[in-house]
């Protein structure tokens, strides 16, 4: 597409098309959007992050990422729709404008570029990275079990052939380490939202222990308001709560790492489930999913804006 208006969200797009779309968005909103390359994947594909900023130096920031499990087109599709929405609404929507006048937003739309490409070309159901494990013929690590947050604990697998294989050590995957390095270097990230599909859930730490975080009450309230806002558009019912109480014990996850590293507002989204197709979401549900998710994201981002720490 020559510009981002004509983008067809109901079709899959190659990684190159998504990266080219990112460049188009930057060209259309040059005063707001720029691109950082924070690393490269195992197979040497660049890892790009969109930066939405109205100026200032090292402002407090919100981190968003989509598509860590590559087979779920709905997640990067929602990411692209959301990125466009942020760009379009700045200067139009007073609340988003107030967020961007105070904070930067970093948005990694394709968190697992190798997995995404493999999904496109070889195995539609692939969900891991593509790194090689020594001593095994099985390939890839679950990038959402690879973070240094009770790494290797409950809800992870040590078997390289499993879909929840944690990897040989924390941050062994360059796709994960690139984010870790970026956020630790930045030092001023105040919120981290990682967007997956599908289970219709909004969760906060912890995933590896049932002990509540010191901020559990506040995170509960934020999640509730986000889920209420989300449901107001199409009536989609989300469950929410700490990861371990809502879905299952999971160690080494993005959200737990974020919280453990001082990012209080750390959430994981599981997008819409049709109850029939799972992440093979019908094309006509992609934009409604993105639209309802936007309302929840706004609630989270507004809370972060209004509760500096």
């Amino acid at each position, binding site marked *: 597409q020559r510009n981002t208006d004509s983008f067809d969200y109901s079709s899959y797009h190659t990684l190159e098309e998504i990266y080219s779309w990112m460049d188009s968005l930057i060209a259309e909103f040059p005063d707001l959007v720029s691109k950082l390359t924070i690393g490269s994947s195992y197979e040497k594909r660049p890892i790009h992050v969109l930066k939405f900023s109205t100026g200032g130096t090292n402002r407090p920031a919100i981190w968003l990422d989509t598509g860590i499990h590559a087979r779920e087109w709905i997640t990067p599709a929602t990411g692209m729709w959301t990125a466009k929405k942020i760009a379009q609404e700045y200067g139009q929507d007073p609340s988003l404008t107030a967020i961007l006048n105070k904070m930067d937003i970093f948005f990694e739309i394709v968190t697992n570029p190798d997995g995404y490409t493999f999904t496109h070309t070889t*195995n*539609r159901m692939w969900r891991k990275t593509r790194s090689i494990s020594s001593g095994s013929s099985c390939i890839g690590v679950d990038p959402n079990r690879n973070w240094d947050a009770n790494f290797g604990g409950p809800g992870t697998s040590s078997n390289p052939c499993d879909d929840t294989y944690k990897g040989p050590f924390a941050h062994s995957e360059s796709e994960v380490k690139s984010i870790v390095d970026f956020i630790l270097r930045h030092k001023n990230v105040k919120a981290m939202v990682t967007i997956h599909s599908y289970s219709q859930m909004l969760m906060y730490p912890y995933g590896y222990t049932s002990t509540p975080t010191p901020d559990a009450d506040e995170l509960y309230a934020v999640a509730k308001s986000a889920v209420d806002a989300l449901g107001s558009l199409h009536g989609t019912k989300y469950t929410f709560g700490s990861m371990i109480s809502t879905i*299952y014990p999971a160690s080494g996850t993005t959200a737990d790492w974020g919280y453990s590293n001082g990012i209080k507002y750390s959430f994981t989204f599981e997008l819409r489930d049709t109850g029939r197709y799972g992440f093979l979401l019908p094309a006509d549900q992609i934009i409604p999913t993105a639209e309802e998710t936007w309302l929840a994201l706004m609630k989270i981002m507004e809370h972060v804006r209004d509760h500096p720490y």
Partner: protein
Amino acid sequence: QKLFIGDQVLRITAESHEQIALLQELQGLEHLELDFWREPVRPSLSVDVRVPFASLQPVRVFLQSHGIQYDVMIDNLQVLLDSEMEEMNHSRQR
């Protein structure tokens, strides 16, 4: 490109922690090459699993012999992927 002809996705509803434990046992049977879309955790959460065509019979026998309820959520995954592809091509042409 890998094909998923005859693969089914089952939505399994466990009624007890004992059935969850059985499903976790099933999950450990690597030769079946099951792909758990939603893992067995607790009875209130349904389990979705893609079962390769070659493993359908043993998996169904396992579930039935333990009285574990399931529905076929996707009857033939490749048919769904083909129709998804067709829908996308149509959309692209439009």
